[in-house]
């Protein structure tokens, strides 16, 4: 199994969700995140005082899938989140040792 983590622009969340649903991915977790990569932040001005805002708002999407589905899911996320402009984000995958469904106690791929 793989944990796929994607950091994307907040307004692409709906597209990513739809793309994953079409792939048959049954669940995901979304958190608000902030950070920066090459995009860096922006400046804001209040009563003439300028502030550099380094961290840009993003959403972090996490989904655990079977090894065989990993590439397809990553491709779907990238395709849905891509705008071609700087700040589109990152997607990465990590191996997952075990998963347990809390309600039933099922373990491994059955819990996905």
């Amino acid at each position, binding site marked *: 199994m793989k944990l796929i983590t994607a950091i994307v622009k907040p307004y692409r969340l709906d597209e990513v969700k739809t793309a994953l649903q079409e792939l048959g991915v049954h669940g995901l977790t979304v*958190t608000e995140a902030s950070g920066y990569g090459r995009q860096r932040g922006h400046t*804001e001005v209040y*009563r*003439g005082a300028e502030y550099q805002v380094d961290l840009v708002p993003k959403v972090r999407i996490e989904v655990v899938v079977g090894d065989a589905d990993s590439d397809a899911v990553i491709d779907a996320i990238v395709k849905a989140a891509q705008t071609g402009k700087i700040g589109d984000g990152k997607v990465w995958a990590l191996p997952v040792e075990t998963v347990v469904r809390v309600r039933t106690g099922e373990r491994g791929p059955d819990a996905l």
Partner: protein
Amino acid sequence: MPLAAAHAAQINAGDTAWLLAATALVLLMTPGLALFYGGMVRTKSVLNMLMMSFVSIALVTVVWLACGYSLAFGDDIGGGLIGGLKHAGMAGLGPDSVQGTVPTLLFATFQLTFAIITAALISGAIADRVKFGAWLVFVPVWALLVYVPVTHWVWGPGGWIAHRLGALDFAGGLPVEITSGASGLALCLVLGPRLGFKKDAMRPHNLPMVMLGAGLLWFGWFGFNAGSALGANGLAAAAFLNTLAAGCTGLLGWLFVEQKRDGHPTTLGAASGAVAGLVAITPSCGSVSLLGALVVGLAAGVVCSYAVSWKFKLNYDDSLDVVGVHLVGGIIGTLLIGVFAEKAMTGSTEGLLYGGGLAQLGKQLVAVVVVAAYAFLVTYGIGKLLDKAMGFRASEEQEHKGLDLTVHAETAYDHGVLGHGAPVSSSVLSPTQKVKNHA
């Protein structure tokens, strides 16, 4: 604010009706100010900011009724400096007492609402770092030692600024704007800057709240300025129109500077510019022509938009720009009376532009300098004494964590996750045994 002769003791229904409404309008300015200031501070201390204004309403009201009114508007007891204690506890005043053409109790209440907002204004200079208990002591002491005497000088019977010097102040450039600004400067020097001043981003946490507050202030300002005519008459109408006009040119002036200087017109700039224009027209709304009002507002909008950045160069943390807006705007408005005063408005006095020469401008300047110096020095003294006696500044830990949680045991906002309205904190926040059951 013209005090009618005491012998014309006849209540006029129209005048009284207008002043009743105007008094309620001015009182609303203080909650408006609370929102205006509250939106400008960070999330962690917004409730404390609101509280400093709200408790001012209660504290100043008590001290005003106890003796403040009498000291400010009682018969002069010498030199035009202060009134007597004849009306302490509102003694001798009842429903039949008349001041000009309105009930004295109404006049006293109208004046009270001015004292309230002036004390509340100072809180903006010392946001996020005040020991709440010290503020509760400061407000009544300050009201008695600074607001009351200056008000007597300007509007009290026999007050020296109005009756000996002959400077004009229709609605409070001196007692309200200049005293609050100079006192704010003194207190922010006593307290020192917020932790992280000039280093951390201290951007306003809620600009819509600032805009709402500015709107309420503007609305209430019609009571403040047009109410200061103390009657439902042509002078009130002129002051009303001047108030609208100056707020508008102040707003435009500030936005113009921002567009040129920073590249963007901002909502905070619009709100600040309108307030700067309103501050400046406060002393002058009853003495300048409409043309004068447009210029007064514009001058304040432009100058104040630069004045708010002096604190970064001179290193004083006037957190929400009480100095840059109220002191500077108040000085501009009070001085420009000497330029734009018109006989049709004042009855006799004329400014430089209308052939009155430099005489009135000189009187205005003296009043400005004396009031600013008095307010600054006395407030600095009160601040230092209080700091010695009980500590005026919140602890470093309180300031880091925010005064809302550490002083009031509250937080302003339940932060949701992605707009679901279900804050993570609610799962760890359950009623304790201490919660009283009101059922």
